[in-house]
């Protein structure tokens, strides 16, 4: 365990991240990063951020070569998906405690004076604690920059064209009306600008609003300036009016569509937040890893509207897959076929994605993602890629949800580990305390036994008969007492991993009580022990342990009461419990001692006879045994004096087989 923590500490020391790209100079960067990782004994990860931009076949093959290279050099490959490359990288950096990032020079250089901030600059801004190493690109390869001219431009739909035409027609009509009412031209221009604004709000993309701007100028010039139905104008100011009109309508159109883009983006991020928030809330409620997994899968199934396959890691290898679907899916069966399972198993072993749309197991039905956190793979989630692939937005949500799931499982795992360690420490502590006290408490009677036996061996013939009898009796008493101690110890050794393992059977309470009383027949000569048990009380218990509880309680009463006192053991049914009482009419227990009675090694102040005869583990053991059975052990006062120890056990229901 210590080596493991050391290992993970070392892991936390250095973590090198290299950014993969399709650039031919990328190989050099990967090599450099690998060398660094080797020298620093660091964790080595290669990240590739998939974007929506189209890449050609040549780039694709170079990219996969680079990925393979990184893999060969011992890198862990991470693929993420998103438009904003620096954001994706910096998010990964934060999540995985990356300490050094290695990137190429080309991505570090700003393009032109007014170019957008570079990857490096953005990375520095979003992850300030990370060292960034820039490797000079020998080839100085610049990737042909192919930003699409109209970002997000789409061919307008018929509906959009219809809206544009209608809107312009309406504007022209209003223009005619205004003209008829001889309003000034400026009003008509305003109407057209309003029309363009409406078009850009109601249609998708830039094209319609741009066309609307142009057309509105054309229409205004054609229909509403003198001379009518010609592009010629008499008034001197009209070309200026046209220009201003064109400029303002283009500007409003662009603004409106940007606004729409923003609205769309923020709606998406709100939706994403909502999904993640819901998932988070569900995961917090989940009690076991199975719960976590099934909630994640149901969430994904709801999100993507398809069945989700999940495999978890068992004790030995992978457990069988489970299918989660919100709706009944007829194709679901084949998602659990052997080939699919093999793919999932590969993912589980390698901790990397595979399946449909990837290089590994590309023929599989599903795309498999490993649920991994902190270098540990907890399971695999499979997402069917048919009938259609999830879009990039859905993809990024899926990744986030799976990440949440992994974190939840990791947290649960860590918590369990911690609890185990604490349990272990506690039971170790208990054992150590016990051993210390035992070795001390056993020494006295053992000393007396061996000393007495020694006397008999060597000086036996010189002793008179009465002395010998006394020595025999001492040896016998001491050994009897030792037997009692060892008896209790036996049950303490059953304290395994901090808890006793119970062997529960249905027992008749009066049989158990009688058994316990018969154990103490010899010891209880000076006391009057009576048993009053109701018939046929059947309770579920570990018989051996409960006998020991009753023995300890009676033994305690024998020890702490005067000769001739009465001890009564009774049992009755009360509600769903069997209630067993050990009552004595001794001196009772002082109020200030009561809270400590069940503490380990507490022996009280007014110990009767010799102090060593009060071995403080009996009552503690009783209490933990009873509580393990789901009962309680309490101490109350007897009237007029004495004390009552009461414990309960759950009754058992039995159907008689006649």
């Amino acid at each position, binding site marked *: 365990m210590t080596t493991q923590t050391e290992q993970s500490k070392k892991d936390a020391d250095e973590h090198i991240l290299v950014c993969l790209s399709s650039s031919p100079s990328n190989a050099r960067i990967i090599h450099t990063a690998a060398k660094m990782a080797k020298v620093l004994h660091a964790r080595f990860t290669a990240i590739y951020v998939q974007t929506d931009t189209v890449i050609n076949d040549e780039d694709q093959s170079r990219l996969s070569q680079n990925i393979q290279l990184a893999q060969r050099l011992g890198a862990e490959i991470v693929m993420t998906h998103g438009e904003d490359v620096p954001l994706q990288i910096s998010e990964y950096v934060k999540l995985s405690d990356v300490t050094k990032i290695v990137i190429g020079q080309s991505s570090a250089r700003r393009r032109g004076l007014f170019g957008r901030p570079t990857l490096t600059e953005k990375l520095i801004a979003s992850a300030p604690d990370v060292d960034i190493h820039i490797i000079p690109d020998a080839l100085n390869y610049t990737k042909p920059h192919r930003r699409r001219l109209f970002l997000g431009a789409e061919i307008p739909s018929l509906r959009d064209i219809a809206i544009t035409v209608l809107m312009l027609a309406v504007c022209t009509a209003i223009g005619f009306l205004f003209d008829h009412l001889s309003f000034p031209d400026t009003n008509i221009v305003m109407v057209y600008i309003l029309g363009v604004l409406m078009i850009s709000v109601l249609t998708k993309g830039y094209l319609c609003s741009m066309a609307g701007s142009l057309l509105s100028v054309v229409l205004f010039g054609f229909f509403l300036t003198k001379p009518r139905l010609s592009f010629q104008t008499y008034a001197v100011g009209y070309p200026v009016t046209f220009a201003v009109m064109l400029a303002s309508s283009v500007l409003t159109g662009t603004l409106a569509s940007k606004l729409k883009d923003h609205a769309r983006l923020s709606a998406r991020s709100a939706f994403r937040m909502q999904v993640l928030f819901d998932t988070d809330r569900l995961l917090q409620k989940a009690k076991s890893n199975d719960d976590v997994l099934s909630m994640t899968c149901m969430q994904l199934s709801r999100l993507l509207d398809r069945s989700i396959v999940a495999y978890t890691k068992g004790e030995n290898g992978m457990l069988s897959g489970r299918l989660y679907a919100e709706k009944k899916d007829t194709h679901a069966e084949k998602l659990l076929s052997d080939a699919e399972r093999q793919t999932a198993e590969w993912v589980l072993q390698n901790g990397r994605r595979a399946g449909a749309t990837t290089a590994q197991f590309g023929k599989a039905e599903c795309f498999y993602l490993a649920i991994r956190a902190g270098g540990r793979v907890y399971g695999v989630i499979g997402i069917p890629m048919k009938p259609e692939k999830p879009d990039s937005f859905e993809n990024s949500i899926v990744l986030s949800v799976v990440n949440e799931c992994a974190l939840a499982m990791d947290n649960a795992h860590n918590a369990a580990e911690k609890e185990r360690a604490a349990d272990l420490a506690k039971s170790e502590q208990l054992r150590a305390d016990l051993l210390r006290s035992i070795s001390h408490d056993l020494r006295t009677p053992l000393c007396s036994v061996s000393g007495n036996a020694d006397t008999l061996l060597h000086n036996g013939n010189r002793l008179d008969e009465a002395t010998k009898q006394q020595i025999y009796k001492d040896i016998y008493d001491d050994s009897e007492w030792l037997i009692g101690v060892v008896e209790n110890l036996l049950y303490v050794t059953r304290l395994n991993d901090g808890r006793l393992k119970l062997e529960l059977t*249905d027992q008749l309470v009066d049989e158990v009580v009688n058994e316990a009383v018969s154990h103490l027949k010899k010891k209880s000569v000076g006391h009057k022990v009576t048993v009053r048990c109701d018939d046929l009380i059947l309770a579920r218990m570990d018989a*051996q342990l409960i006998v020991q509880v009753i023995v300890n309680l009676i033994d305690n009463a024998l020890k702490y009461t005067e000769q001739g006192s009465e001890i009564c053991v009774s049992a009755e049914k009360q509600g769903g419990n069997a209630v067993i009482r050990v009552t004595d009419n001794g001196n009772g227990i002082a109020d200030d001692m009561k809270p400590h009675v069940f503490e380990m090694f507490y022996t009280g102040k007014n110990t009767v006879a010799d102090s060593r005869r009060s071995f403080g583990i009996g009552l503690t053991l009783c209490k933990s045994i009873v509580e393990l059975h789901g009962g309680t052990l309490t101490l109350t006062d007897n009237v007029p004096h004495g004390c009552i120890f009461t414990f309960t056990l759950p009754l058992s229901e039995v159907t008689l087989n006649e």
Partner: protein
Amino acid sequence: MNKPLVLVVEDDRPVRNLIVTTLKANDYRYLTAENGHSAIIETTSHNPDIVLLDLGLPDIDGTQVIESIRSWSNMPIIVISARSEDKDKITALDAGADDYLTKPFSVEELLARLRVTQRRLLLLQASGDTDSPVFQNGELKIDYAAGCAYLNGEELHLTPIEYKLLCLLSHNVGKVLTHTYITQQIWGSSWENDIASLRVFMATLRKKLEPQKDSPQYIQTHIGVGYRMLRVD
């Protein structure tokens, strides 16, 4: 009457000495063996009347010794085991042992067990060849042919299961029968529910049989192990 020959199988010397001393003091004849293999050889060559067998032997498991002896002889076997080994005790009884002693045991306990076994031995020899139709034990009488049981001359009103239990115990008087064995015999199965039922039936049977609850005369309970019918003189 000749005192029976007892074979003591125990690897721990002080305990063996204790048993041997006790046997000597009470005029038993005895043999000793330190491990399983020599125990098997001693039983075949001397054919002892009673075997006292420790379960934790250095060479082979005590249960194997029982199985080996049971393959050719019905001689009474008393098993000696440590308290924590309840399971071993039950396996040994199921393998054919007659009784058990739990370490640490007192000398009186050992002698009592030997006496019980001796009486059982006598009974076996007496009724060896003829299966007597009437069983008599103290004040308890069972007429197998009529299917009736009597206590103090009065007929006991038993349910069929109670009667079956009583017969089973009487056929094995002096021998500890495990829960598993009894449920197998009565119900043919040994589910947990059967064992719980067994306890209830045994309790009702004992109520009819034993007027004094805390000092049972006929049926002895062995918590976690089983029941035994005692031979009453």
